[in-house]
Structures are given as structure tokens and as C-alpha cells.
């Protein structure tokens, strides 16, 4: 299969087209503009629709409309734009409409800046909108994984009838790496018999995102809840790397995950016993697996490009069994291999105190 050198943003766009996405609605925002720019010529080539919306609010509701018809649809944005989509995402989740949302996140809060960051973790994973819903959240760490997870995102969206967010960052979106487009193989999906396409001769259908009766709305919420539990059982994904009984287990996702991989390798050279746990699904979070890995380590070190968000999920998984430490940068500052190693040395030099 041909290896091509491709920018992350363009790779995700191409993967979407290959995954059968035929409609894209979005509003420009750095650092993910190449996604729409690519699709603006690529989608028409395959008879698809690229439409630049007047705003992110409009975009997410165009998604709502198009997803209602059963089509595979995608939008993409970054921090501020994703914030504007929160009401829409909550509605999509309530209406159980499949769609894929890419967040190439950038420094926040506010307009912040356009450099890479991971400070939208909470928003993505806990549900930044109102109500008890969750997005499926996938965190790629290479351009290749961006491609592979884009395929998977469309699959999961359809399988669970739930919006999926691909949580990347400016670095992933902007960088080029070699990539291969492998044809994904997924089990067959059920027909979209819920889709609204004009009733034709059949019974009519409708899609709504409310239920004014509390009992009915609670039923919807419980259905969603069961779906999320099922996700936790069936779809959790992560990779590990390095020593099997490490002194320090490093935990990081996405871009930080790849940096931590270098840390493990460099650390080895310095005689450190390190391992990496990199969650690929942020929701469902690989709680149990992480807990097991953490038990084998003396300490856990979470590194993020934020000030401690996934940290909470790690602490919830580790449950106080092993001390958990944190190193974070934010606002577009990217942690370096050197400083992580330095911090590890510092931790190991002191007696590692119990997590307090």
C-alpha cells in the first residue's frame, strides 16, 4: 500500500471521504482549516457536499439535519468553535444521531491562541453541554492514527448512534507524517431504519431531542447510560509501551503520548525503568486496564498539555493505590522530553510520598 506524506488535517479529511462521509459542514478556525480546504475540492469529486457554514452553531445544526437522514457527516473545529457547538452536541446526543466532530484543539481559555493544547479534555469527555450525555472521544497521536481513528469514529458513531469526537491538537493537525490508507474492516452495521428520508410508502418517522414528560426523559437518559456502560465494556482502547514493571508509569494521550514514548526510550538509555500508558479512547476511559498497569508501578506520572484534566480520570482509575503525579503545560507550550525526564529523576530522588 502506498505511503504518502500528508498533513494531519488533510489525512483526517481524506480518511473521512474514504469512510463514506459525503457531507461536511464547518466554519474556519485555525489550526484545522486544511480539513475544510481539502474537503472543499475533494467532496465534490465524489459527489459529496462541502458547505462552509456561517458559524459553528449553524454548522453543528446542519450536521443535526444531515445526520437525521442517515448520511455520514462530519464537522471540525477547534476550542472556541467546539464550545459554540455544545448545545448542538447535547442535542445530537439526545436525538442519538451519529456524526463525527474533529477538535484540533488549541490554547485556551477564551480566544487563547492557535498553538497545540489539550485543555479541552474535560469538555470533550465530561460533556461540555448540559445534560447527562457523553461523546465517544478518540485521541490519536500520529497522523497514521488520525486516519485509522477517523475510520473508526464513523463506525462507532453508527454502531452506537452517538456523536464521536476526535480530539487532536494543532500539532497533529499541522504536521506531516507518512501515512498509509488501509481499508478498514468492521463488522456489519444495522440498517439505519430510524433515518428520516421522507416517508414514501412506509410509516412516517421523526427525530426530536426532547421529552416534556420526566418519566420519558428519564427513560431516554437511562438508555444513553446503558449505551455508555456498553461502550466501557466493548470499546475501550489504549496502548502500552516500555518496561512491564516500571518505576514510573507515564500516562498521556495524543501528542503528549508520542512525546512520552520518546521519554520512555530516552529514559531507558539512562537506566530508568519506565512505561507508557496511552489511552486511545478517552471516553470510554480505559479505567480497569490503567488500574492494573498502575498497580505494577511505584508511581504514576500524568503529563498533559493542560493543567490537570485527564489527571482526574487517572486518579479515579488508580483509586489511591499508587501515588499519582502531574506535569503539565498549557497555552501552546509543549512539554519536552528533557523536562519530563528531569521531573522523573526528581520524583525518584525523593522518597515518593503517598498520594495525598
Amino acid at each position, binding site marked *: 500500500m502506498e505511503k504518502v506524506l500528508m498533513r494531519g488535517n488533510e489525512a483526517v479529511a481524506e480518511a473521512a471521504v474514504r469512510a463514506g462521509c459525503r457531507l461536511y459542514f464547518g466554519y474556519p478556525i485555525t489550526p484545522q482549516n486544511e480539513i475544510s480546504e481539502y474537503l472543499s475540492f475533494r467532496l465534490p469529486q465524489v459527489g459529496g457536499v462541502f458547505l462552509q457554514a456561517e458559524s459553528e452553531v*449553524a454548522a453543528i445544526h446542519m450536521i443535526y439535519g444531515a445526520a437525521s437522514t442517515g448520511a455520514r457527516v462530519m464537522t471540525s473545529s477547534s476550542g472556541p468553535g467546539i464550545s459554540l457547538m455544545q448545545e448542538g452536541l447535547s442535542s445530537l446526543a439526545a436525538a442519538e444521531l451519529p456524526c463525527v466532530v474533529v477538535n484540533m484543539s488549541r490554547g485556551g481559555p477564551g480566544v487563547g491562541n492557535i498553538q497545540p493544547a489539550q485543555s479541552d479534555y474535560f469538555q470533550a469527555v465530561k460533556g461540555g453541554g448540559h445534560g447527562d450525555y457523553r461523546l465517544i472521544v478518540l485521541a490519536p497521536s500520529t497522523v497514521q492514527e488520525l486516519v485509522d481513528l477517523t475510520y473508526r469514529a464513523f463506525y462507532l458513531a453508527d454502531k452506537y448512534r452517538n456523536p464521536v469526537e476526535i480530539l487532536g491538537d494543532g500539532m497533529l493537525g499541522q504536521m506531516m507524517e507518512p501515512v498509509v490508507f488501509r481499508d478498514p474492516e468492521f463488522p456489519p452495521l444495522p440498517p439505519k431504519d430510524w433515518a428520516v*428520508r421522507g416517508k414514501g410508502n412506509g410509516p412516517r418517522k421523526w427525530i426530536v431531542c426532547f421529552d416534556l414528560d420526566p418519566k420519558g426523559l428519564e427513560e431516554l437518559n437511562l438508555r444513553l447510560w446503558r449505551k455508555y456502560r456498553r461502550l466501557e465494556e466493548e470499546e475501550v482502547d489504549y496502548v502500552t509501551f516500555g518496561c512491564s514493571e516500571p518505576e514510573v508509569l507515564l500516562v498521556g494521550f495524543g501528542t503528549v503520548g508520542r512525546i512520552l514514548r520518546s521519554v520512555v526510550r530516552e529514559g531507558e538509555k539512562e537506566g530508568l525503568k519506565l512505561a507508557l500508558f496511552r489511552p486511545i479512547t478517552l471516553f470510554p476511559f480505559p479505567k480497569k486496564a490503567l488500574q492494573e498497569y498502575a498497580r505494577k508501578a511505584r508511581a504514576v506520572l500524568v503529563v498533559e498539555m493542560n493543567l490537570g484534566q485527564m489527571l482526574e480520570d487517572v486518579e479515579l482509575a488508580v483509586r489511591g493505590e499508587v501515588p499519582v503525579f502531574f506535569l503539565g503545560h498549557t497555552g501552546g507550550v509543549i512539554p519536552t522530553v528533557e523536562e519530563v525526564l528531569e521531573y522523573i529523576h526528581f520524583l525518584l530522588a525523593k522518597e515518593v510520598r503517598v498520594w495525598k
Partner: protein
Amino acid sequence: MEVVFKRPRTLLKKPFTYCPGCHHGLAQRLIAEVIDELNIADRTIGVGPIGCSVYIYEFIDVDFVVGAHGRAPAIATGIKRALPDCVVFSYQGDGDIAAIGTSEIIHVANRGELITAFFVNNAVFGMTGGQMAPTTLVGQKTKTTPFGRNPEVHGFPFRLGECLSVAEGSAYIARVALTRPQFIRQAKECIRKAFLAQIEQKGFALVEILSPCPTNWGMSPKEAVDWLEQHMIPYFPLGELKVKECLSRETS
């Protein structure tokens, strides 16, 4: 005996959930009648609002999508782009379309999106209990203009139809009322043209329907229709505001 008037086929047989004297039901009946006459129920998709008529999908017997408050035009765009052969219409109140959803309706018109929009203007936020709407008249008392709408503080009543007529992409814009049988006949004709503008690919079409809200106006149904005629129509004149080429101008 011949039937002079009966419930249209596409209007499901159940009582409306609106207050006595509210014209939401009347407007929906006319839409259903036109859908019947154009024989498009099988390929029509409606997009509902958040507002008193949120349950519209319970009444008109076609496929429906209802999303968030104000976003029907965007939702309709998504549907129409996915299914260009379907007939897509949206139905919104003044709060939905002219307050929170201003941007969406303007850009749908500007893009000349091939959808048909219905805008029920009752000069008030009905569902939430009678607050000021963008279309509330000067001096009109509402829950949030207890001393009457004062343009110096609250701004002027917004004429959405006129505003959308400026957009190049709009093909047909009309304003109607349903307070008298002859108005109702004209309204139906406008609704028909608005659907045809879509079917014949002329561009975006909108029919603004002036409508009473006896409950929030604090009036009897009869007082409400009278007030509508006396106060709303002068500020929101009835008629076709824009008819792009090909579309014939006269109302039958």
C-alpha cells in the same frame, strides 16, 4: 352531500395542543392542505421549532426533525443538502426565527437554500410565557416590557420579511394573516407558491404568518384577532414582498 370543508388528509386526527383561538393550528392546517394538493407528503420532511408549536410533528403526517431553538434553517439545510429530492419545510415562531435564529435564517436566504420556511409571528414569545419578541410592537406590554416596548430601550419591531427580501438568494417572500376567510384563502395561495419556489428550484421561500396569542396578549380570541388586524397589520403589511422572476405575482 358534497364536502365543502373537511380536515386535510395530511393533518392527523387529534386535537391541537394550542390555546383556544391560537392560529398555530390554522397555519398547520393550511400547510397540510397544500401538501395534500401538491401530493408531496411522501417526500416532504418538516423541521419543527422550539416554541408553542414544538409538537408540530404530532400533527402533520410527514417525516419530521426537531432540533434546538432557532436552528431549524440550519437543520433544514443539512437535510436538503443530503436529500435534494425531498421537499423540506421549516416552521418557526418569531422568537425562534427572528431572535435566537436570526443568523441562520438570513444565511439560508442568502444561500438561496431550496427550502420553504414558515414564520408564525405572534409578536411575543408564546411558549415561555409572553416575553418580548423581536416583533413585539412599540408600546406593547409583555412580561419583559411591563411598561410597553420602548424603542429607545428595547429597539424597534423587526421586519424579518423585508430584511430577507434584500437577500439575493430569496425567491419568494410573503406576509399573510389568517383572521378572515379571504385572508386565509390568500395565505394558502402564498403557501402554495412558497412550496413551488422550492419544487421549481427558484430559491428560498418564506411565508410570514401573523398570528394571535390570546393567552399572552391577555385577550379573548376575538379581541386578539381584532388587535392583530388593527395593530399588527399596519406595521407588518400583508402581501407578497418578493417574487423572483418566473413566479407569477398575483395572488388568486
